[in-house]
C-alpha cells in the first residue's frame, strides 16, 4: 500500500518538477532526480535510482527543441518507482510496463497544459491594454498552475487509484504471464539504446565519428576487463573460503568508473578545443586525425 503522505509528497514533487525544468533548471526536473525523490519517499532508494537512471538514459536525447512536447519520463519514473516498491514489482519490468507507457501518455496532458496557457496569454494582453500590472502578474503566474496541474493531477489519480490494477498485473506477471515478464526485463536492458540513438541524430556524428569509436572502444575494453576482474576476484575468494584458507581477498572490486571515462572524454575535448584555437583557419575535418595521434 502507498501511504497518503507518500501520495501527497509525490504529487507535490510532480507539480514542482516541471516548474524547475522551466525556470531554475537545477536538474530536479530530470528523470534520475525523480527516481531519487520517489525512492526516498517510498523508502527504497536503490529501486528509485535504478528506474530513474534507466529512464534518464532512455530519454537522454529527447530535449525540448523549439517547444515540442516530449515524453514525460519524470512522471513515468515516479509512478513506476511507487508501484514497484509498493506492489513488489520487479524494477526492470516496471520500466517497460509502467514508466514508458505513462511517460508517453503524459504527452497529452503536457499539450493540454500548453493550450490552457494560451488562455492566460490572452488575459495578459488585455491587462497590458488596461495597464493593470497586478492583474498581469496574477494571470502570468497562473500559467504555472496549468503546467503543475498537467503533471500533478494524473500522477495523483494514478497513485490514488492505480494500486489494485498494478497489483493484479504484478501477480499475473509472476504467474501465467511470466514470459511477458521475461521480455519486459530484456526491454529494460534495451531501451537506453533509443536514448543514445536519438542523441546521435542530434549530435554532429559524421564530423566526429572518430570520437564516437574511441569512446565506445575504450569503454568496451575497460568495461569487460573490470567485469572479468570482478568475477575472477569473486571466484578466487570463493575458492579460498572453500579451501579453508585464512586472509582470502574480500572480493571488493569496483566496477568501471564512468566518471573516469568522462575525464578521458573531457581531455580529448580540451585537446580538440586547443587545436581549434591554435589554427582557426584549418578545416575542422582535418583536425580529427591530429587529435587521435595526440591521445
Amino acid at each position, binding site marked *: 500500500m502507498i501511504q497518503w503522505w507518500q501520495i501527497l509528497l509525490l504529487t507535490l514533487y510532480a507539480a514542482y518538477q516541471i516548474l524547475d525544468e*522551466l*525556470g531554475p*533548471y*537545477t*536538474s530536479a526536473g*530530470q528523470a*534520475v*532526480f525523480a527516481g*531519487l525523490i520517489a525512492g526516498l519517499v517510498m523508502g527504497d532508494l536503490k529501486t528509485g*535510482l535504478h528506474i*530513474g*537512471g*534507466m529512464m534518464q538514459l*532512455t530519454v*537522454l536525447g529527447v530535449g525540448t*527543441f523549439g*517547444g515540442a512536447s516530449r515524453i514525460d519520463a519524470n512522471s513515468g519514473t515516479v509512478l513506476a518507482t511507487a508501484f514497484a516498491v509498493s506492489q513488489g514489482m520487479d524494477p526492470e519490468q516496471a520500466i*517497460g510496463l509502467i514508466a*514508458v507507457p505513462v511517460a*508517453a501518455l503524459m504527452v497529452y496532458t503536457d499539450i493540454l497544459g500548453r493550450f490552457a496557457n494560451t488562455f492566460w*496569454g490572452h488575459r*495578459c*494582453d488585455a491587462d*497590458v*491594454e488596461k*495597464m493593470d500590472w497586478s492583474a498581469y502578474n496574477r494571470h*502570468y*503566474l497562473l*500559467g504555472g498552475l496549468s*503546467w503543475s496541474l498537467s503533471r500533478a493531477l494524473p500522477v495523483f489519480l494514478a497513485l490514488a487509484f492505480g494500486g489494485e490494477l498494478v497489483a493484479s498485473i504484478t501477480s499475473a506477471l509472476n504467474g501465467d504471464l511470466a514470459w511477458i515478464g521475461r521480455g*519486459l526485463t*530484456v*526491454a529494460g*536492458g*534495451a*531501451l*537506453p539504446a*533509443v536514448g*543514445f*540513438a536519438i542523441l*546521435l541524430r*542530434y*549530435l554532429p556524428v559524421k564530423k566526429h565519428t572518430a*570520437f*564516437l569509436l574511441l*569512446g*565506445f572502444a*575504450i*569503454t*568496451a575494453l575497460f568495461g569487460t576487463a573490470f567485469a572479468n576482474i570482478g568475477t575472477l576476484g569473486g571466484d578466487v575468494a570463493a575458492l579460498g573460503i572453500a579451501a579453508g584458507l585464512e586472509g582470502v581477498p574480500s572480493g571488493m572490486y569496483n566496477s568501471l568508473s*564512468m*566518471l573516469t*571515462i568522462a575525464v*578521458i*572524454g573531457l581531455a580529448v*575535448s580540451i585537446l*580538440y*578545443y586547443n587545436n581549434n*584555437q591554435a589554427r*582557426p583557419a584549418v578545416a575542422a575535418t582535418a583536425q580529427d586525425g591530429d587529435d587521435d595521434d595526440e591521445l
Partner: protein
Amino acid sequence: MTMTSSKKLPNGTTGYKLQPEDFAQINRRNLAAFQVGWNYERMQHTGYLWIILPQLRKIYGDGTPELKQMAKLHCGPFFNTSNFLNTIITGIDLAIEEQDGVESSEAVASLKTGLMGPFASIGDSIFGSLLPTIFGALAANMAIQGNPLGILIWVIANIVVDWFRCKQTHIAYEQGMKLVTTMSDKLNAITDAAAVMGVFMVGALVATNVNITFAWVPDIGGVTVNFQNIFNMIMPRLVPACLVGFVYWLLGKKGMTSTKAIFIVLFLSIALGALGIIAKG
C-alpha cells in the same frame, strides 16, 4: 492618469538608469518563472515582458502612454528563444530602451526577432542537449549502480550554469551588440569542442548501458553454436552497438518519432526476450 513625479525627456523616458538591484530583480524573475506563461500561440511573449516589467515601469513612468506602447511591443508578438540565453537579448534591449525610449521601438522589435532564432539553436544544442548528455549520463550511470552522487554533480553543474545566466544580463547591457559578435566565434568553438565530448560519451554509454546479449544457442547438426561467444571474440559489446545502429537507422525513416522508436524497441524486446532469442546481460 496620475503622472507620478517623473519629468519626461523628449524620448519618452524618465531618464532612469538601471541599478544593480534592477538586474538582481530581472535575474530573480528570470530564474524563477521566465517560462511559466509558455503557450502554443506566442510561446514566451508574456514571459519576456514579465521579467522586465518593473524596469520598464521605472524607465517610462507608471501609467504613461509610452509604457503601454512598449509593453504591448513586448507582450504582443511571438517570442521564443533559449531560456538559457534569453537575458542576453533582455540586457541589450534594456540598454537601448533606456537610451532612446519609445524611439527605439523598431530597433528593439527587430533585435528580438533577429536574435531569438540564433540564440535558440545555440542554447538548445549546448544547454538542452550537450550538458544533459554529459551530466545526465553520468548521473544516470551512477544511479543505476545505486549511487546518488552523480545527481549532486549535475545539480552543481546547473548552479554554475544559473550563475552564468545571471551574469550575462549585465554583460549584455554593458556591451550591447558588440557582445554578440565577439561571442559567436567563441561559442562556436566551445559548442564544437563540447560536441566532441558529447559524441565520445555516447560511445562510452553504448558500451556500458545497453545490456542485451544473444541468448539463442541453436543446435546445428549436433554442434551447439553459441553466438554470444563468437560475438565476444569479434568485439565485446557488439550486440549493443548493433542495436543502437538499428535504432539510429530507424529514426532516419520518414514519419518516425522518438516515442514510436521507444515503443518499437519495447515490443521487439518483449517478443525476442519471450522467445529466448535475446536476454538481458
